[in-house]
C-alpha cells in the first residue's frame, strides 16, 4: 500500500477544508461564530493526516483494535451533536419568526384601523 499517497491526499483534503472555511468566513457566507467548530475539525484532520499513529494509539487506549474505526466513531458522535445543535437553533429561529409574523399581523390590523379612522375624520372636517 502506498502510504505516502494516502498521506498526501488526506493532507490536501484537510487543507482544502480549512481554506474553504476561511474563504466562507472572509466572504461572510459563514458567520465567524459558527466557523470555530469547523476550523477545529479541519485542524484535527490536518494533524491526523500527518501523524496517523496518534489515531491508532487513541484507538488502542479505548480498546478499539482498528484505528480508523475510532475515527469513524468520533466523527459520528461529533456529527450527531452538531445536528442536535442545528435543530436547537432552527427551533429558536422558528419561534422568533413566529413572534415577528404575529406582530406584523397585529400591527397591520392596527395600521389599517388607524388609517380608516383618519379617513373618516378627514371627511368629517
Amino acid at each position, binding site marked *: 500500500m502506498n502510504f505516502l499517497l494516502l498521506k498526501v491526499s488526506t493532507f490536501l483534503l484537510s487543507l482544502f477544508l480549512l481554506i474553504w472555511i476561511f474563504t466562507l468566513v472572509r466572504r461572510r457566507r459563514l458567520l465567524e461564530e459558527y466557523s470555530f467548530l469547523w476550523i477545529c475539525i479541519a485542524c484535527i484532520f490536518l494533524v491526523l493526516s500527518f501523524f496517523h499513529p496518534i489515531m491508532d494509539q487513541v484507538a488502542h487506549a479505548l480498546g478499539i483494535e482498528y484505528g480508523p474505526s475510532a475515527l469513524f466513531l468520533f466523527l459520528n458522535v461529533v456529527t450527531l451533536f452538531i445536528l442536535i445543535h442545528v435543530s436547537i437553533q432552527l427551533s*429558536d429561529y422558528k419561534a*422568533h419568526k413566529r413572534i415577528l*409574523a*404575529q406582530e406584523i399581523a397585529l400591527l397591520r*390590523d392596527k395600521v389599517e384601523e388607524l388609517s380608516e379612522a383618519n379617513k373618516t375624520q378627514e371627511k368629517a372636517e
Partner: protein
Amino acid sequence: MKKTLIIIPAYQEESNILKVIEDVRAHMPAADILVVNDGSTDQTAALARGAGVKVIEHPFNMGIGASVQTGFKYAARYSYSEALQLDGDYQHPAQEGPRLFQVLKDRQADLVIGSRFITDTGYHGSWFRRTGNRLFQWVNLLVVGQKIIDNTSGFRAYSRRAITLLAETYLGEFPEPESIGYLKSRGCTIIEVPVQMRNRTGGTSSITPIRSVYYMVRVLASILSFKRTPGGRP
C-alpha cells in the same frame, strides 16, 4: 363591561367560514368575532371581512398553534375578559358557547373544554383515535394530575388569566393538549363539559393509522414539554 372574543382559527375554509360566523352571531350576538387567517390562499379572509368581522392575517401559514396564540395576543392587547376558541370548519356548535362561558363563570374556571367523550354524545371516531385518546388520558393523569378526557378538543372557553398566560407561551402544532399541561402547571382550573359535535362536512379526516402513531408521539412530546416559564423558548 365584560368583553367577549370569539377566536376562529381558519386555514382554507372558504366553504365553511360564513356558516361559522353566522352560527356564532346567532347564538352569541354580543361577542366580538376574530378570524385568524393562517395564510389561506383561498377566499377565507375576503369572505370573513365581507361579513364584517375582524380578520387578522398571518403573512404565511404557521399552523394551528400560532393561529390560536395570535388570537390570545389580540384578546390580551384589547383587554377581553373571556374568549372562546372555535374551529373554522363548522364542527363546533356555537349554541354550546354560552354554556361553556356559564361554566367558566359559575365555577371560576380558567379553561372549559367542550368534550366529545365525556358522555356518550354519539361521537366515537376510529379505533386508533380512541386508543390514542385513552393513552393521552393516562399521560395527562400522570403529568398533569387531572383526568382530561378529550384533550385534543379545540372547542374551549378561556378566562382572562388563561388568555394572558397563553398569549405569552409558544404553543406548537398541538396547542390543545399542550395548553392543558401548561395552564395546569400555572395553577389554573380546568373543567370539561360534554358537547355534541357536528359531523365533518366535506373532506376526510387526515388521521390514518401510520399518521396517528406519528401524531401520538408528537402530542406526547408536547404534553411533556409543558413546564415552561411564560415566554417559552426565546
